[in-house]
């Protein structure tokens, strides 16, 4: 079939003629990507290890707790945790273990760090994913509705977005709770397990996300709508809605996808406020407690985990670009 296809249908011809070059290029891109990812990972690990060392106060004191512990007990614990060894040795051991997936034991929680993170990461991911999905959906709808509309519509929309970006999450969360939980009783303020309890915190973090994404997406849409191919499409008799959905949206999505990858990391990092207001467990609470009690293994574990997630998400998004934009399938 490929041999008999007219030259206008490019893709099958190309797949027939140049498969090895494409896979080779893809493999090289993946390798570069992996190398930079590892570099990011190592950087995160090293920076947080030394930042924590710089915090004043003795780890042994935080660790011991027991006031009447004898000198022998103190020594025992110090050597058990390897705290008497030079810093570079502690660092090397730590990196080595981290590469093998062993994040050590928490000083304060009496359990392996992987266990503590495993329990905390699920509610955090649920919240982040729900907030991002909601923000993305609303932003798409808003951008499609407002791009290249009358001046008044666009100014109102930009104004609302500006407020959305500027509103502190804490304040928005309290406001949402007061109205939709305490007054109207639509959603529970407490109770972390149910889907209903996820709605308000997700809305709270979706507000700034929506505002940012709408602006970026509208700009992309407007640029696309000025392209000659839009004129062609309209000349073929396409409706305005179809032009926006089928042609312009794809163009506008590219920068948004890049932004989503970054937002994911930002949201996960700033999630503690939302968790606290809504009384939810999660990664934010875990890491704040750990910093306060100088629970080094947990802090490092969370940093590593977040960095790894961030890298995975960004690689996944990289792979996703060609799906949105066929032009990227052949070039790097």
């Amino acid at each position, binding site marked *: 079939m490929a041999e008999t296809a007219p030259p206008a249908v490019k893709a099958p011809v190309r797949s027939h003629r140049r498969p090895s070059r494409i896979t080779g290029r893809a493999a090289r891109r993946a390798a570069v990507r992996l190398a930079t990812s590892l570099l990011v990972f190592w950087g995160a690990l090293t920076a947080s290890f030394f930042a924590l060392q710089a*915090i*004043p*106060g*003795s780890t042994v*004191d*935080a660790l*011991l*707790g*027991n*006031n*009447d*512990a004898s000198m022998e*007990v103190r020594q025992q*614990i110090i050597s058990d945790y390897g705290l008497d060894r030079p810093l570079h040795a502690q660092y090397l051991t730590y990196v080595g273990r981290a590469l093998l997936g062993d994040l050590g034991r928490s000083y*304060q*929680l*009496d*359990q392996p760090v992987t266990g503590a993170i495993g*329990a905390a990461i699920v509610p955090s991911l649920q919240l982040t994913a729900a907030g991002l999905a909601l923000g993305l959906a609303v932003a798409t709808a808003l951008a499609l509705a407002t791009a290249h509309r009358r001046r008044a519509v666009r100014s109102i929309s930009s104004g609302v977005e500006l407020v959305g970006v500027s509103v502190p999450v804490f304040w928005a969360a*309290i406001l949402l*709770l*007061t109205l939709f*939980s*305490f*007054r109207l*009783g639509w959603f*529970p*303020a*407490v109770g*972390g397990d149910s889907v209903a309890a996820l709605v308000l915190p997700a809305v709270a973090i979706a507000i700034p996300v929506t505002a940012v994404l709408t602006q970026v997406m509208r700009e992309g849409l407007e640029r696309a709508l000025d392209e000659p191919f839009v004129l062609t499409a309209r000349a073929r008799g396409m409706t305005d809605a179809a032009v926006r959905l089928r042609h312009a949206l794809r163009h506008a999505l590219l920068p948004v996808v890049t932004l989503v990858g970054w937002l994911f990391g930002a949201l996960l990092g700033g999630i503690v406020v939302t*968790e*606290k*207001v*809504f*009384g*939810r*467990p*999660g990664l934010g*609470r*875990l890491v704040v*407690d750990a910093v*306060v*009690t*100088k629970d080094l293994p947990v802090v490092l574990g969370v940093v590593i985990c977040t960095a790894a997630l961030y890298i995975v998400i960004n690689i996944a998004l990289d792979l996703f670009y060609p799906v949105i934009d066929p032009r990227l399938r052949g070039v790097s």
Partner: protein
Amino acid sequence: MFRPRRSTLAVLAAVLPLTLSACGGDGAGGAAAGGGAPVQGGTLTFAVNSEPLALDPHTSPQDVTAIFTRPILDSLVSQEKDGTIKPWLATSWEISPDQRSYTFKLRQDVKFTDGTPFDAAAVKANLDHIVDPKTKSQLAASQFGPYQDTEVVDRYTAKVNFERPHSPFLNVLSTVFFGIHSPKELAKGPAAQASNIVGSGPFLLEKYTAHQSATYRRNPDYRWAPPTSSHQGPARLDRLEIKMLVEDSVRYGALTSGQVDAILAVPPSSLRLAEADKRLKVDRVPVGTYSYFLNTTHGVFTDPKVRDAFRSSVDFKTLVDKLYFGAFTKAYSPLSPQAPGYDKGTESQWGFDAAKANRLLDEAGWTARDGEGYRTKDGKRLTLRWPILKALDRESRVTLSEQVQAEVKKVGFHVDIQNVTFNEYLVKYGKAEYDLLDYSMRADADSLRSLFDTGNITKGPRLTQNAARYSDKEVDGWFQQALASSDAKTRLELYEKVQQKVIAQSVVVPVYVQSTLVGRNAKVGGITFEPQGFPLFQTAWIGRG
């Protein structure tokens, strides 16, 4: 001599959003009125304002840990409001003539909820567990003082030995920080106790989710409530849920919208609203005192005149009334007014007097003023270093500190409020690099010793609680007499003298009396309080509708 040494974290527990619970024995308590006739069954949801860092009360010094574990754990003895010790899991006890041994006769019908029988071996396992370094006890072990060992005399007789007399023992033994776990569960090690506690109490823990909640089920076999309880037999509630809602407005909103049935710590700003709301009731239980401790060994406060001037230059009564809307009241002594041994004489010992403050500072040589209006001596400004952990603020203490800063400026003090991290705080505390530190004590008379005994001045790496770094031979002598005295009345008289003297020497500036403010739906009844102010749910009920 007994020198209670508290750890870093125990000291901080008093400063951070956890109040340190010292030896029990103040006179708070009593049943909450209202709620109609007792009702059997139902689920009560209670929300608290902080979160346990550790769930085992043998390890943790936190109030909130006590609240989470009291439904599960019973103690060997119980305590009346007036401080009298009553039986509980122990039916009787004898103290040896040298006051170094306590022999307890135990109840023979008690069973832990995992089926393990309660006996002398269980007592030994628990008391040894408190002092085991692996437990990392931050409070109970130091309250245990010169504990030596526990002998299992026979199946239901346990003998607890001390190296020297330790008179606060029965007081602390009545608290949940000395609660009795199932020895089978304890044997599983600290990792197990991080998420599960098993005891013989009126409820058993079903599920504990850190940062979120704990759910409990009634223990149907419970027949050993203490004589101090107003309700004997199993708990009235089928189920109990305790949620952690640290945000004040969220916790209060959850109460008013009926999403929870009762809350700990009604925000002071909402107190009047809550009291005016017919659907709600508020129980006030005075529990402790929040004070400023002035560093008597380093900096400007080594001069008693400067200390007195600082204390006299602030109208604390007006500040406290305005800031807390009547929820908290002005304190005069480091002990709270309801505590046995409280010295009422302190109320007339000191007060606001700006003229006196100015005169004292002149006498102390701080006569010159610099360009900003602060007093100086030999070219040095009259500056107070005040490290505060703003990130962990509660009860609007940061706001209060800023108001105090503005007040004392009028007589020429420069207050340097330092917003520090937890670890910076530890370092400054250890090296005495401060002029003023603030914290609250759930103070009973015995805890005055940890605040003002020379032995509790921080030396070396471990922090102890005498933040004023106060050292006085006469006061130390009174403490020793009190420790050796088995007569409660003599002890309390000695502690009254201590209060007089530390106030006279301006070592401490008591600021406000803290109350536990429990807000509850009017259909909730029967929540009672331990002498330390912790709510008890074995007696509680919830009406229908």
